[in-house]
């Protein structure tokens, strides 16, 4: 058993809003082992991004950590002061590239000046060292060094995304979380970003990656493990091959069937999408949250919340069909 980089235990993080409490992450446990790429898939509004912010302890009202523990590389960050987390954890042990990363760079600063500010916040080094560090890293990752001296608006979308990823891993964090890094990019640029992520791991700059997306075909290319999330809960997890070739949860099967790629297998079975819309998390459905959209729903699904059970070697499913 490899060591765990990140452990999240029964985490609940809710948004307290005027309309009510949004249970965006409801009782989620997640482990990230050393050396793997974990793919997290689910529809918009299923709590993927909230879960990532929670794992980072990037929690600001109206979002509250209601319950649960988060341990990153041996440190219990769910109990830490925000100030300490900012200085000692973010960027150093665990980095997050959020969905809006294309807007993360300062429009009025050249990339190198932005890097200088970021690095100085965490470690005490001279300007010269930072510049040589950044140049070396850009060279290693095959990014044009000239781009360090440009302003963000002078970079293309793909280049900006790659620069943000390079900057967030400058201090060699163990874990990198990327949230929909390629959704706004075209296929050729997307491939370059994915290659960069693999390079970061190959050169041992980072140990593990959590990749969040709604596109399973992308995960197929890079992930080792797959975690499927629906309406604030994890419904299935396992190795990529197991989950893709033999999905146990009807939602997972639906997600896989909804993939549209130019392949004979998919052409044969035709295009199918999951009927309905994801539920409102202020007032989620009783029992299994997927039951109103599920083709196999039974009476029990309406009443009892299925537990996430281990069916074999770390393959976990939460569905009443699997138990019976």
């Amino acid at each position, binding site marked *: 058993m490899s060591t765990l980089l990140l452990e999240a235990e029964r985490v609940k993080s809710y948004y307290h809003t005027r309309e009510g409490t949004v249970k965006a992450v409801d009782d989620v446990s997640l482990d990230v082992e050393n050396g793997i790429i974990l793919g997290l898939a689910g529809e918009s509004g299923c709590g993927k991004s909230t879960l990532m912010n929670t794992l980072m302890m990037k929690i600001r009202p109206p979002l509250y950590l209601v319950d649960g523990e988060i341990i990153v590389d041996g440190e219990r960050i769910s109990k830490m002061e925000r100030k300490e987390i900012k200085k000692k954890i973010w960027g150093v042990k665990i980095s997050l590239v959020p969905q809006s990363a294309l807007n993360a760079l300062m429009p009025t600063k050249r990339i190198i000046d932005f890097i200088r500010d970021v690095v100085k916040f965490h470690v005490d080094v001279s300007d010269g060292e930072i510049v040589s560090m950044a140049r070396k890293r850009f060279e290693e990752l095959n990014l044009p060094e000239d781009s360090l001296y440009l302003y963000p608006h002078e970079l293309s979308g793909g280049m900006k995304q790659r620069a943000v990823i390079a900057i967030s891993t400058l201090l060699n964090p163990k874990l990198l979380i990327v949230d929909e890094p390629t959704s706004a990019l075209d296929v050729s640029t997307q491939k370059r970003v994915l290659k960069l992520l693999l390079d970061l791991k190959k050169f041992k700059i980072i140990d593990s990656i959590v990749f969040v997306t709604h596109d399973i075909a992308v995960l197929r290319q890079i992930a080792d493990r797959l975690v499927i999330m629906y309406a604030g809960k994890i419904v299935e997890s396992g190795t990529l091959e197991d989950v893709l070739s033999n999905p146990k949860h009807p939602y997972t099967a639906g997600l896989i069937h909804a993939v549209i790629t*130019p392949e004979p297998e998919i052409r044969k079975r035709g295009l199918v*999408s999951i009927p309905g819309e994801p539920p409102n998390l202020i007032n989620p459905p009783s029992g299994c949250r997927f039951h109103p959209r599920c083709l196999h729903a039974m009476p029990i699904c309406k009443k009892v919340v299925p537990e996430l059970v281990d069916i074999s070697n770390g393959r976990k499913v939460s569905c009443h069909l699997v138990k019976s």
Partner: protein
Amino acid sequence: MLLKVKDLSKTFIVGLFRKKEIHAVRKVSFNIKKGEFISLVGESGSGKTTTSRMLLRLLKPSSGSVIFEGKDPWALHKIEDLKWYWKQVHGIFQDPFASFNPLYKVDRILYQTFNLLNVESDAEKEHLVKESLKEVGLRPEEVLGRYPHELSGGQRQRIMIARCYLLKPKLIIADEPISMIDASTRAGILKLFSDLRNNYETSVIFITHDLGLAYYVSDRIMIMHNGSIVEEGTPDEIMEHPKHHYTMRLKEDVPLLYRKWKGF
């Protein structure tokens, strides 16, 4: 022939003193028949959107011609003629969030179509709106009377397509209509375009960077690169025997579900 596009070009001139010409679209020519579904595929910056804007009469071409049902849209000046063009040629855009005014209920965007239609009675209007929503798989009571932020991206894009069911245009130009929509609901939205074509013989120009999507719905695919159409063919021809090196690269870069990329 419904639409004839010949040598369509657009050159943007940038800079104040040192002027630079950017050839966004270079001599693009193609024809569309009634009921034909064609896809325009290319990466960002290949000129797809500039082409679509010229077809929608939102951007004046630098040279070349667009002829729709024998008429040049740029020669239309009278309001009745323009209304005719807007009713016949309808655009659907990438960002279903930007198409709505956040201050108004979603009903407004549907009722606005009656400015182009001859419907007098309010009861008839309400009936047509409800029917169009049902056509696109929405329950009228779920969406009417709500504000855009209360709906998901997929629901919003469906409402935009409901407008097509009200207007029954002859040509729909859909510019990346599903790239901001969840993978789980993409197939359903894609099907709505096919349904329109099958039920009303609507012609569709589907603009996308994803060859995978184009493969399923099109009769014909055109590959666009650096402002020109570099290859054209049926989906099978393009996927199985791509000729242009850019098409080959595009095909290789599409992530697949059952095959892993080399070197990954």
